[in-house]
Every structure is written in structure tokens, then in C-alpha cells.
């Protein structure tokens, strides 16, 4: 192997490590934030510890000394926290979160031969603070545990249970940074250690001792109101490096459980074959445990994103080809041919769904980082905010999860900054001092909806309108009649900001318009619901994927147009008022008493010829309400692959892309957001149209 190869392998491995470490950092942060709220959450503490520990271990493999040394300090502090040797304070939490940021910096510098001077300096200063925090409080864990035992009043009803824990350490435990002492100390915080016998029989003479190999075994008597699982959990990190037997003293032998990593399987085997000698089990378990762990690892494989994209492209072509074959089959009037193409079509659809599923990831990853954002921002603003996340398991395309991160961040910050009031204002308004910010995601009719809602003061209609009028976005006499939804949409106009006080978070007037354009670029929509004094909800609706569209096919003249199916509300016969001569391409019609704007697409696109036969109006849902689109013919649902338009055509108003029909013809995909903008613009120029319109419904 040449050194070039070695370098490449190392670089590839490093990339894997980096992405894993990024995930670990996210876990670490999430766990810290849980601990901040519930300092006694043992699982979260374990999780933070595990993340730091794994990072340290992997970092060592790549010779990132700065990372290893720093993580070690973090880990030691966590260890002390876990053992109860020191109590959690704001100070400690602050330093731990800073440490997380520092770890991120160190990771980003992984490719450099050594850490930058800046990072090294931070390493030094933060490391010193971590050490200082640990030194401040001496170990009190054992003392307190003993004090508990001395006061039987604190013992729970039913009396504590007596446990015997046998811990035979593997040789590598110490080298792996796992000190049984910490675990015993931690165990002491859960109850009372009634006796620890350290088996020193494997300790050799000094001259033969491998100073870093662990040769001790422990027999621990423990008393406390803990169940089996809780005790096993204490030794969670050690499972790979020890043999652990936990049994309740005074129970029959039959109830004795042998505990290993893959507990269920092992226990079953142990029960099925009681004749197996203990020694046999010992050696066999290790292998089985290894196998189980390997199985775990293989549940995920890493695939290059471009390979996946190539596959999805190919399947897209297959969708088109399959539609084409189906059409040919119909034209050939061969029942058997039609049947077989139908079967192929079904399979292609399944393959398509499967391929797209490969790119799907739970949105929770993207939500998780908001815990930190909410914490930091609300501290900075002196507000007290509780973040609630629901629907984190909702899946969406990975590339979209990435593209949605920034817009979401903006909406969250906007809610924190402008929506939720300070505790004093909240109390004055008769609300709980703690504000609530909720992130909610769910699937709805082929789209994903993400909502950011707060229980703050809501949007201020008058102020938005005043500003919009002063900026010439709305005609002064049209302002009063604008429906709420249309008013809320105004905040997405470029250069619009209503904050009285411009803060460094939001309120610079850039952002909300960027949010909308980003969302629209993903064929998504933003809707706002707001109630003065009660709060606001911003809803993003996005297609599940960017590559394939569930479309609704229509035609005008000889040209096909596709609308995203999930925004189509209904199709109606063209109302009489749409046929009246109108200036421009848009007007309004009466939809069961509501005034709804419509666009005559034939006029908008200046298509030659005159409409013949019965025309239809497709009513679509838009950010601000509804919009009617006048077309010649409806062709129904159509699933297709989106092809971006050539650069020459990208400036076409109202067209978002193109697609190829089974027949080989090109269909144009309509950009509903742009069409809506056009209709609204037309109407604000002609306010009389809106004001006279209600008469139609009366």
C-alpha cells in the first residue's frame, strides 16, 4: 500500500469520524439541556457522558491530542456530576455548553496539523475552568450516602432491597478510560454500599504488573430501593469491559439473572440450557454479545449522497418511461399489454417511494438544536421561554431538512424576539410568566407541515398596515378591507420590519422575505394565524420531496400545465362572472359567499385562440387564502418528475419548472405563489374590485 493510499483511507475515516462526532455533539448538547431542567435525570447524564467519552476515544484514534485532552476534562467534570461529587450550577452548565462549542471548533480543525492558536488558547482557559469547577467541591457522595443510610426515615416503605453485584473487570477497562471506582462511587449515591470486597487475587507482583491493565474484580453488597434494571444501568458504559452479575440477595437461584449487553437473548439461552457450565457461558457470551453489537452497527450503512441522487434520478426517468409505456399500451388496445404495464407501473411506484424513503430523515435532528437557541436567546432577552417539540419523528427529505434549517431559525428567533413578551409584560397581560414556544411537524396530504407557534402578543394588524401603507405596499383605501391573512403575509415583503426596537436578533428587516423566498424555492408555502394577545402560529407547508411532484394536470389550448396536487382544494365549473370582460388577467368571483380572486391563465400567458367548450376553475389553497385558476380542461392526477427549466426560461413569471408527459410532450409546472402575488398586486391597484365584490355574494 502506498502512503498516498494510506492518506486517502485516513482522510475518508476522518470524514466519517467528523460526521459521527457532529451527531455526538448534538446528543451531548441535547442531554445537557435536559440535565439543566432535570438535574437528576440519570439517563441524560449517562448520555452526555457517553457522547463525550466516545468522542474522546475516536479522537484518540486520529491523534487529535487537543480534542482528547479537552474532552477528558469535560468527561471528568461530568463524571463528578454523575457521582454527585459536585452539584450542578448555572456556572457549570454555562461552562459545559461553552465546552460543547469548543469541541465543535476542535472538530472543524481536525484537518489542520495542529489546533489554531485561538482554539488552543480557549482549550487552555476552558480546561482550567473545568478543572477549577471540579476542585471546588470535595467528594461528598459517600458521606451523603452513608448519612442517608443512618437515617432510616428516608428509606422507602417496604424497606430497601439487598443486592449482590459481581463485577469482573476486563483488562482494557482502564485504558478505555473507564474507572470502576467512578461506578462504585456512583452506585453509592443510589443507596448504601453495605460491603465491597475487592478481589486482588489476579494482582501480580509489581514487576509483572501492566500498570494500565485492570486485574481487579469486585463483589459489592448494595442496599437500596432500586430494581435490577436500575443497577445494571449504573454499569452501562462498562458492559463491554466487564462481566457483570447482579442478583438480589435472599432470592432463589432461579431468579438470578445473568446480565450481559444483549440481555434478553442471553437470559433465554441460559434458561433453555441450564446444563451449560458457567465457564462455558462466560466465554460464549462474549462472542454472542459481540455478534449482537455487530448486528447493531449494520443496521445503518453510510452511502454517498451523489450515488443516492443518481439512483433517484434514474427512478424518476423510470416513472416517465413507465407512464409512456402505459399510454402506448392503451393506444394499442391490448388488454394484456395494459395489464402488464399496470403491474410495472405499480412496481415503479413502489420503487420510487422506496428510493425517496432512503433520503428521508426525521425532522427532529433539525428541531433539536432549537433547545439551545431558545435557551440562549431567551436568556439574552431576559425572557422565560419553554420550548415544546412535537412530531420530531416526522420524516422529510434530507436536503430539505438542511434547507429548512435557516428559515426555521428565523421564525423561531422572530417568535422569541417579537412574539413572546417579557415576564413582566406577560404577568401584566394576565398570562403565566413563562412563555411557550412550540415546534410541531406532521404529514398532511402528501406534504409536510411545520408549525412554529408562540403564546405571545400576536401580530399587530394596525402597525403592519400602517407600515405597509407608508411603504406603498398597500393602497391606503384598500388597507381596511384586506383580510387578516393577506395582512400577515405583508411581513414577508422585502424590507418590512415592524419591531419598534431593532435588536441584534431579528428586526433588521432582512430575513422574513428571505424566509419566504427560501420556502417558495422548495415549492412550499407559509401561512400565519394570529390572535392579538393570544399568540401566533406560522405554518410552513412543504412537499415531501423536491424531485417528484404529485401533480394535477390541466390544459389550456394545446399546452399542459401541472399544479401541485396537495394545494388543489376543488374544481368547479366556470362561474358566470369569470366570463365578464375584465382588465388584465385577474378578477374576483363568488365562491359560496366568499370573494376569491381568480386568474385567467389563457389571458395571463397570452395564448392564441379562443377557449372552446366548458371551461373549469381550479381552486387552490395559497398562503393568504384561496385562488381560482381558469383553465380549459382538467386531466386529473398525474405523478411526475420535475425538471428544472433552462436558465433562459427561469425568469418566466408563474412557471416553476417543467416535466415530460408519458406521450413525450412537455408540461409546465405552475408557480402558484407567483400567480397569487400577481393577482393580489392587480387587486391592490384596483381596490374598487374588492369593495364592490361582496355585493356579488349578497
Amino acid at each position, binding site marked *: 500500500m502506498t502512503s498516498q493510499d494510506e492518506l486517502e483511507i485516513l482522510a475518508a475515516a476522518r470524514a466519517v469520524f467528523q460526521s459521527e462526532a457532529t451527531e455526538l455533539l448534538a446528543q451531548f448538547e441535547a442531554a445537557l439541556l435536559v440535565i439543566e431542567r432535570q438535574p437528576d435525570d440519570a439517563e441524560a447524564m449517562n448520555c452526555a457522558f457517553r457522547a463525550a467519552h466516545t468522542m474522546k476515544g475516536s479522537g484518540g484514534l486520529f491523534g487529535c491530542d487537543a480534542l482528547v485532552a479537552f474532552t477528558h476534562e469535560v468527561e471528568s467534570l461530568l463524571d463528578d456530576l454523575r457521582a454527585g461529587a459536585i452539584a450542578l450550577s448555572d456556572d457549570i452548565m454555562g461552562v459545559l455548553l461553552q465546552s460543547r462549542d469548543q469541541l465543535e471548533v476542535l472538530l472543524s480543525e481536525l484537518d489542520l496539523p495542529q489546533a489554531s492558536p485561538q482554539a488552543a488558547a480557549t482549550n487552555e482557559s476552558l480546561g482550567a475552568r473545568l478543572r477549577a469547577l471540579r476542585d471546588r467541591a470535595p*467528594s461528598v457522595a459517600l458521606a451523603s450516602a452513608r448519612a442517608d443510610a443512618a437515617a432510616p426515615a428516608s428509606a422507602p416503605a417496604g424497606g430497601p432491597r439487598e443486592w449482590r453485584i459481581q463485577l469482573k473487570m476486563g483488562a482494557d477497562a*482502564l485504558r478505555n478510560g473507564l474507572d470502576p*471506582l467512578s461506578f462504585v462511587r456512583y452506585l453509592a449515591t443510589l443507596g448504601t454500599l453495605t460491603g*465491597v470486597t*475487592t478481589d486482588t487475587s489476579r494482582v501480580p*507482583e*509489581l514487576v509483572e504488573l501492566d*500498570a494500565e491493565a*485492570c486485574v*481487579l474484580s469486585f463483589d459489592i453488597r448494595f442496599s437500596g430501593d432500586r430494581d435490577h434494571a436500575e443497577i445494571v444501568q449504573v454499569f452501562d458504559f462498562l458492559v463491554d469491559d466487564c462481566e457483570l452479575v447482579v442478583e438480589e440477595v435472599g432470592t432463589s437461584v432461579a431468579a438470578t439473572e445473568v446480565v450481559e449487553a444483549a440481555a434478553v437473548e442471553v437470559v433465554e439461552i441460559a434458561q433453555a440450557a441450564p446444563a451449560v457450565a458457567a465457564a462455558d457461558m462466560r466465554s460464549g457470551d462474549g462472542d454472542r454479545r459481540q455478534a449482537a453489537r455487530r448486528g447493531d452497527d449494520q443496521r445503518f450503512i453510510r452511502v454517498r449522497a451523489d450515488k443516492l441522487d443518481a439512483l433517484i434520478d434514474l427512478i424518476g426517468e423510470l416513472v416517465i418511461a413507465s407512464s409512456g409505456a402505459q399510454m402506448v399500451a392503451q393506444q394499442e388496445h391490448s388488454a394484456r399489454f395494459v395489464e402488464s404495464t399496470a403491474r410495472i407501473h405499480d412496481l415503479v411506484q413502489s420503487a420510487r417511494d422506496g428510493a425517496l424513503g432512503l433520503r428521508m430523515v426525521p425532522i427532529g435532528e433539525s428541531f433539536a438544536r432549537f433547545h439551545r437557541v431558545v435557551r440562549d436567546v431567551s436568556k439574552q432577552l431576559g425572557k422565560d421561554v419553554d420550548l415544546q417539540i412535537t412530531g420530531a419523528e416526522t420524516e422529510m427529505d434530507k436536503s430539505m431538512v438542511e434547507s429548512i434549517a435557516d428559515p426555521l431559525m428565523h421564525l423561531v428567533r422572530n417568535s422569541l424576539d417579537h412574539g413572546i413578551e417579557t415576564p413582566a409584560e406577560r404577568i401584566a397581560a394576565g398570562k403565566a410568566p413563562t412563555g411557550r414556544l412550540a415546534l410541531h411537524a406532521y404529514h398532511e396530504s402528501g406534504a409536510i407541515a411545520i408549525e412554529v407557534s408562540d403564546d405571545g402578543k400576536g401580530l399587530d394588524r394596525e402597525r403592519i398596515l400602517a407600515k405597509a401603507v407608508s411603504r406603498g405596499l398597500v393602497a391606503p383605501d384598500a388597507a381596511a378591507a384586506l383580510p387578516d391573512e393577506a395582512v400577515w403575509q405583508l411581513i414577508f415583503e422585502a424590507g418590512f420590519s415592524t419591531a419598534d426596537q431593532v435588536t441584534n436578533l431579528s428586526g433588521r428587516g432582512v430575513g422574513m422575505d428571505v424566509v419566504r423566498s427560501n420556502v417558495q424555492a422548495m415549492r412550499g408555502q407559509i401561512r400565519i394565524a394570529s390572535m392579538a394577545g393570544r399568540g401566533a402560529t406560522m405554518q410552513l407547508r412543504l412537499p415531501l420531496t423536491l424531485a417528484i411532484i404529485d401533480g394535477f394536470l390541466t390544459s389550456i389550448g394545446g399546452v399542459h400545465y401541472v399544479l401541485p396536487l396537495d394545494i388543489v382544494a376543488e374544481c368547479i365549473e366556470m362561474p358566470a362572472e369569470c366570463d365578464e370582460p375584465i382588465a388584465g388577467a385577474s378578477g374576483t368571483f363568488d365562491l359560496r359567499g366568499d370573494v376569491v380572486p381568480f386568474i385567467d391563465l389563457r389571458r395571463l400567458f397570452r395564448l392564441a385562440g379562443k377557449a372552446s367548450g366548458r371551461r373549469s376553475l381550479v381552486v387552490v389553497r395559497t398562503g393568504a387564502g384561496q385562488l381560482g385558476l381558469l383553465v380549459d380542461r382538467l386531466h386529473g392526477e398525474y405523478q411526475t418528475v420535475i425538471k428544472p427549466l433552462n436558465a433562459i426560461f427561469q425568469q418566466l413569471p408563474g412557471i416553476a419548472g417543467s416535466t415530460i408527459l408519458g406521450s413525450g410532450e412537455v408540461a409546465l409546472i405552475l408557480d402558484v405563489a407567483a400567480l397569487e402575488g400577481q393577482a393580489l398586486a392587480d387587486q391592490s391597484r384596483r381596490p374598487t374590485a374588492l369593495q364592490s365584490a361582496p355585493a356579488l355574494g349578497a
Partner: protein
Amino acid sequence: MDAADATRTTAWTAEEEFTIAQAETCRQALLERLSACQEGEPFGTLDLGAVKRIDTAAVQVILALRRTLANGGQALRVHPASAAVHDALGLYGLVGLLGEAA
């Protein structure tokens, strides 16, 4: 030099950190000290008074030393021992190591 004096001779003094990072160095130092001891000469005591942090690797070094000394017919004496050492050996049920200077 009689035996009573020997127990007050400090054979080796641990520093603040007595953990896996120092374990091998300590082992070497103790081995040197052992080989310096002539047949029948008492080893002396371990001074763990300054230790602020001790871990299992360090405890093992002490135990291995005890075994070596025991094979040579000597007892190990640890004196003085810091709070951290008391704490660790207490958790491990090894307070017997802390033979308060006989």
C-alpha cells in the same frame, strides 16, 4: 537501622495526581526503589498525603507492591494518606492498606 525506624522511612512519595497517566512511571520508580533495597532491608512507607486524585490503576500499583513486599515477607505501610486516598480505598473495602503506622 532497626525495623521501627524503617517504617518511618518514606520509600516513595506520590504527587497530587496518582492516576493511570502516572501509573507506569510510579511502577518504575517503585521497582527502582525495590531493587535498591538489599535483602532484608525494610522497604519503608508510601507517602500518599499529597494525593488529590487517585484511580483504580493507582490502587492496583499499590496492591501489586503489597504483593511483592508480602512475597519478600514484608508488610506495606501507607502513611500518611490524603482524604482522596481514604475515600478511594474506603469504597473498595481496602482500608486495610492504610496500616496506621504500627
